[in-house]
């Protein structure tokens, strides 16, 4: 059934479906409602014209509060409290507090008529701004807020606690000065029933939840407001009292250390650890301005602590090849094997780096070899898979594909599995040196297969990802938007890989269902590594990322100076990963803190190998290095 409006315009009780006054309503025979300018928990705020001034347009803000208490006695008390507080507010005279012109109650609604502030509140300003708000601007607003809070806290006979400091309650007027717009006056309209939400989740201090509202609470909430303004991280989206977990300078490195320290002090969990008074808070903010010169708009950037973290790391040994090392080493029986772009596979003593032998292929070697029994297996740009005796360094047999081999061989159940630019994944029987089967995928396979539970996982260059069984049948297939050059890893029945479409993917290993995808800033060819419910990968955006495997949230990211194309490896409590900036980074995987870095003279695009406290890594500077882990 269609409902029809029966009450005409101009009626005092002319309300929209959700109970708001319609524009054109004449409220209390004096205020002509123009439009809704805000919605609060208790009712709406309107812009209205005061009709007592017929010859000029005098705009006011009308705040409506709906009395929802069912008990008449309670309702009466609420109205009395409202009027008492309105009386107090009406006596306040401060440039940052809107003047109160009038208040009245009609039926179950009470109205407060205030000075209309032409401007935007800080929440709107935050949401409309791109990037961070300038530090000096936040500082200037902070000092003004301290001033007005000091005025309230110093009120006689009783101090006034604002109780609801947050960005949406602070207006910035046309002259870039702050105005506090929402006083705790509305608080008495809030019901305190079971299951209610916290008033202003995110900005209030812990003691406010014990029912205490003191000047200390305003100090905390102002700290929370400044934190939000500086970091753009909305505390209402975070667990309560978790500011310490979001250090300001981590979110916004442009903020000075001094400012961060002051805000942190205001945000202390225990009220006695914060500034004693709002005046102390203001003085600290003014000092930040003096020290940093921010108040003179002289932007002195804080001294960056140049990392003294070793350039003094000495390799255990280093061995020079004749061309770039793009591949990944493997260690077997005290010997390190690594392929080189000079076409050779090198065998070096793991302890001393002493040359044992080299085997020349007819093309560069960019993959990671695999050792099985007495032979080492690797593919080359020369289209061949080579099986070379590890004792003599002589070819035992080789296997031809129709394209270059960049995928690393994996050995399982007497077969060697690898991809080729001939678009196939090959399974070669080691005993017979013959093809067992090959699976055509439609594009080059440069991803190295991961084998677990008799399943073979890999991607190809048109972005298809495959799960094959041991006979080469497709169990499932998944499409990414761009090529998958990275090699997958399977952890807890979930397969992880990255793609040139900039995502890190998590798929159910059994069915191929996409569980989550994590967006990085640029494409990736980095093969992820997983440990302790973290999956670690990197991207051409220069970062190494650690992502929580359950919630798909970034736990940390580490910035290198260039693209990250090499893959990370985990050893003990650290992740080791190279970057095109030439450094090998050793990072604590739980925290993302740098433990050390080692500089080579060329990009590192291979994966390091860590074994027995030694890291082995090849660089485009032609060297393979052995470093203490």
């Amino acid at each position: 059934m269609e409902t029809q409006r029966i009450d005409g315009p101009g009626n005092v009780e002319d309300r929209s479906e959700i109970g708001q006054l319609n524009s054109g309503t004449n409220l209390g025979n004096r205020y002509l409602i123009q439009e809704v300018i805000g919605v609060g928990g208790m009712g709406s705020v309107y812009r209205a014209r005061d009709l007592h001034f017929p010859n000029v347009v005098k705009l006011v803000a009308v705040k409506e509060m709906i009395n929802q208490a069912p008990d008449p006695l309670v309702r009466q008390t609420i109205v009395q409290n409202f009027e008492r507080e309105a009386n107090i507010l009406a006596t306040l005279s401060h440039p940052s507090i809107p003047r109160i012109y009038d208040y009245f109650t009609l039926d179950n609604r009470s109205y407060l008529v205030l000075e209309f502030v032409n401007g935007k509140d800080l929440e709107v300003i935050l949401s409309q701004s791109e990037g961070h708000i300038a530090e000096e601007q936040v500082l200037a607003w902070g000092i003004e807020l301290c001033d007005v809070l000091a005025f309230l806290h110093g009120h006689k006979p009783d101090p006034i606690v604002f109780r609801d400091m947050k960005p949406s309650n602070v207006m910035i007027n046309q002259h870039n000065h702050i105005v506090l717009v929402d006083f705790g006056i509305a608080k008495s309209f809030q019901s305190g029933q079971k299951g209610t939400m916290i008033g202003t989740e995110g900005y209030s201090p812990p003691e406010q939840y014990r029912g205490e509202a003191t000047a200390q609470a305003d100090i905390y909430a102002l700290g929370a407001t400044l934190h939000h303004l500086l970091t753009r991280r909305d505390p209402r989206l975070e667990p309560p009292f978790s500011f310490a977990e979001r250090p300001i300078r981590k979110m916004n490195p442009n903020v000075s250390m001094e400012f961060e320290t002051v805000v942190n002090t205001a945000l202390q969990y225990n009220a006695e650890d914060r500034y004693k008074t709002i005046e102390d808070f203001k003085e600290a903010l003014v000092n930040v301005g003096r020290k940093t010169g921010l108040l003179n708009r002289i932007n002195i950037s804080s001294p960056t602590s140049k990392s003294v973290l070793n350039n003094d790391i000495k390799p255990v040994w280093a061995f020079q090849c004749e061309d770039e090392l793009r591949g990944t080493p493997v260690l077997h029986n005290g010997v390190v094997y690594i392929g080189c772009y000079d076409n050779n596979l090198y065998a070096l003593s793991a302890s001393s780096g002493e040359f044992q032998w080299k085997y020349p292929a007819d093309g560069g070697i960019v993959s990671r070899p695999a050792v099985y029994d007495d032979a080492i297996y690797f593919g080359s740009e020369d289209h061949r898979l080579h099986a070379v005796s590890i004792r003599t360094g002589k070819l035992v047999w080789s296997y031809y594909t129709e394209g270059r081999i960049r995928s690393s061989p994996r050995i399982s159940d007497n077969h060697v599995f690898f991809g080729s630019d001939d678009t196939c994944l090959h399974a070669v029987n080691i005993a017979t040196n013959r093809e067992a089967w090959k699976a055509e995928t439609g594009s080059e396979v440069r991803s190295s297969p991961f084998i677990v539970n008799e399943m073979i996982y890999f991607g190809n260059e048109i972005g298809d990802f495959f799960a094959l069984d041991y006979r080469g049948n497709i169990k499932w297939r998944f499409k990414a938007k761009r090529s998958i050059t990275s090699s997958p890893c399977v952890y807890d029945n979930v397969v992880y890989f990255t793609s040139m479409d900039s995502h890190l993917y998590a798929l159910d290993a059994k069915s191929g269902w996409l569980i989550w995808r994590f967006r990085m800033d640029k494409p990736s060819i980095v093969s992820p590594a997983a440990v302790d419910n973290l999956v670690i990968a990197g991207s051409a955006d220069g970062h190494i990322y650690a992502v929580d495997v359950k919630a798909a949230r970034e736990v940390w990211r580490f910035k290198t100076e260039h693209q990250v194309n090499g893959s990370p490896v985990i050893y003990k409590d650290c992740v080791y990963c190279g970057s095109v900036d030439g450094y090998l980074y050793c990072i604590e995987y739980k925290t993302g803190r740098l433990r050390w870095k080692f500089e080579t003279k060329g990009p590192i695009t291979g994966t390091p190998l860590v074994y027995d406290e030694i890291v082995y890594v090849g660089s485009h500077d032609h060297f393979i290095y052995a470093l203490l882990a």
Partner: protein
Amino acid sequence: MLKFIKKIFGRNQQTAQQALDNVVTAPLSDAQLQSIRTITVNHYEPPQFLVTSAQSVGRQRELNEDSLFTLSTTIAGHSSNAPFGLFIIADGMGGHQYGEIASNTALRVISGYILKKFHNSLFNIPSMPVEESLQEVMSAAIMEAQRVILNEAPGSGTTVTAALVLGQQLTIGHVGDSRAYLLYNDQRIDAITRDHSLVRRLEELGQITAAEAAVHPQRNVLYRALGQGETLDPDLSTVPFPVGSYLLICSDGLWGVVPDDEIKKIIFEAPTLQRACQNLVSAANAAGGPDNISAILVQSLG
């Protein structure tokens, strides 16, 4: 002989080489071994979910503001899918207008949204893959419920804990203080959701103990709920749901009065899944039944 020794030696090296991949292993406990044996023996085809639920208004409320939803499908045969399950509990906020409407709306919007997304994958020929990830679908469903509640029942609020299960992957979307638990074969019980409640937060910060939290006057205060506040950031996570284990989703009417250990005891000692679920609700009522009680119990067979 030399060859023989070498062969042994070579094998040893193979084991050593495993260490290069940093595989960390630890011996399994007896209970874990036992559970593996049990499962291996009782291999069940096709894999499926055994589902049951129970609800009670409790002993002190007149109105039931909880809502629950269960759906489980098995498609087995030539073209088989992993079993699909969707289980949701929403607990409307007391003291707010229309708590029961909010919880019911949340349930219908979320289940409707997810089933629409999966319809072409589960029931179409040819099966069309879902474009978004499981977590993206879950997140979008919850945001849609938030939008609808803000429009249709402004001022109301509800918790929601939704579990989307595909085979052995359990994806949880969660807001508020209803809970999901996993109970493993070796008799471990894990809460896999985190309450968005003030007391839970104070507890995490070490400000109050679990015992204090259980009797705290503000233990019902939430800092995140559907329909409340302009912003919403649901918790999303995906965890393995191993064969043989149980998933329990419940409102605080159950976990608020029945301790985890007792929940575990009731589930593992009951003769059937249905009885276990009924016994959980009875235990909450026996403890005073101060709030509405809802429980969904799922076992993964395979």
